[in-house]
């Protein structure tokens, strides 16, 4: 059937068909590369440490442990329980340190402060330190991601 007029010339139609096909082909080649450049995250699901290492801590003291390749902190509470944090500043990801005399966590990168419960109290941090769930199972201390 011959149309009296068309919005498309045959050339424009074929060009866009071939162009679209080439773009799809390019995307098919590039997508595996985009996938390749981000490796899977290696955060542990849980960490187990001997309870004996942490049992004799005085209340309000803090001890470090390894949360995967990040520092973690365990704090002994008044009632003898534990709370755990990821020791990484919520501002720009620097590792924090516990200043025992002030019972506060300190980030040296941009002078951020958290209280002993991980609450952001001064400086640029926008959120509290990330909490982890702690449980005692037999003679082991199990630290997990918080549900």
């Amino acid at each position, binding site marked *: 059937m011959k149309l009296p007029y068309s919005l498309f010339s045959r050339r424009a139609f074929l060009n866009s068909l071939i162009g679209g096909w080439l773009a799809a082909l390019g995307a098919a080649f590039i997508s595996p590369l985009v996938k390749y*450049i*981000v490796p*899977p995250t290696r955060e542990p699901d849980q960490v187990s440490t001997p309870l004996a290492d942490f049992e004799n801590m005085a209340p309000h003291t803090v001890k*470090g442990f390894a949360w995967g390749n990040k*520092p973690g902190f365990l704090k002994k509470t008044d009632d003898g329980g534990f709370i755990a944090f990821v020791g990484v500043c919520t501002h*720009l990801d620097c*590792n924090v340190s516990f200043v025992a005399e002030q019972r506060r966590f*300190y980030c*040296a990168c*941009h002078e951020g402060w958290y209280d002993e419960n991980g609450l952001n109290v001064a400086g640029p941090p926008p959120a509290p330190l990330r909490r982890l769930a702690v449980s005692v199972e037999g003679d082991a201390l199990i630290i997990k991601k918080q549900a």
Partner: protein
Amino acid sequence: MNVLRAWIEDRLGLSAVTGFLAKKDVPRHKHTFLYYTGSSILLFLVIQIVTGVLLGFYYQPTLAEANASVVRIMTEMPLGWLVRSVHSWSATFMIALVFAHLLGIAFTKAYRKPREATWVTGVLLLGASLAFGFTGYLLPWDELSLAATKVGTDLPKALPVVGPWLTQVMRAGGDVTGDTLSRFFIFHVSVLPLAAMAFIGVHLFLVQRHGMSVPHEEERKGVNVPVLPFWPNFAFREAGVWLVLLGLLTTSAVLAAPGIGPQADLMAPAPQGIKPEWYFLFMFQTLKVFPARVLGLNGEMFAVLIMMAGMAALLLLPFIDNRPFERKGKVITALAWTGLAYAIGMSIWSLL
């Protein structure tokens, strides 16, 4: 000799280039010194390539060996300390000149038609220079470089949509690890050099294509701007400038060689009183004093968005200020001064 020259000429046709250079003129006016900033950047770029290759002979980009291999370069390799010091100082000189080059062009409005593309490639090269500095800073793998990289790669995370993905691409995963070191190394020695070479090629071609821009105030004086032949007059002046800069470079490199801190420990708290390289100080201070929440939004995201908007405005300056070359552009001049004053002020504040 002449036979050899004729043989090469027949095959390469280089007389088109040499003929162009022999005829090239450089305008002479009170801002002619700005022209030296561009060629001096090239001088330091060549020094960076040579010293970078030399460092690469002994450097090992792995978690276990990176710090130790830089210590070995500094202590055991003949004149290794000097090669590293020159590489570090030459980077500083180069970035300082890149900023000077940019400001000179902003003040003289040389980015206006028809030189928009030259400006855009120039701003991309500024980005490449900063990326070279940022990736190179991690390679010694000491406490400072780890903390700086954690902060720098965390910044894009605040951006909407692509932010978290960008951070993962830069870090090779969620955290800064040995994979980040490999990635920074390959960017520093391969990806960025290739990209920079391509942009420099286009940039230099466009500079020759359009000729040197003459500040309009000179043309307004109503007399023809006097010129200096590029060869040999201007080239000799340039050589003089280069000699002075080389003297400053070697003096700084010999008297103030950079040190190296203890090997980075992924579990250790960030060291006290950390500071990035001087050209990132103004951003560092901005992040430090920016409030945690602004108008109910995450302050960090706000700060990063403002910085990104600033960079985009810089890149697109010729299209924002697209008025004819004859216009004065007092607003742009004022903005350039404001930006400079802000950067210097924040940098000084961060050092107090």
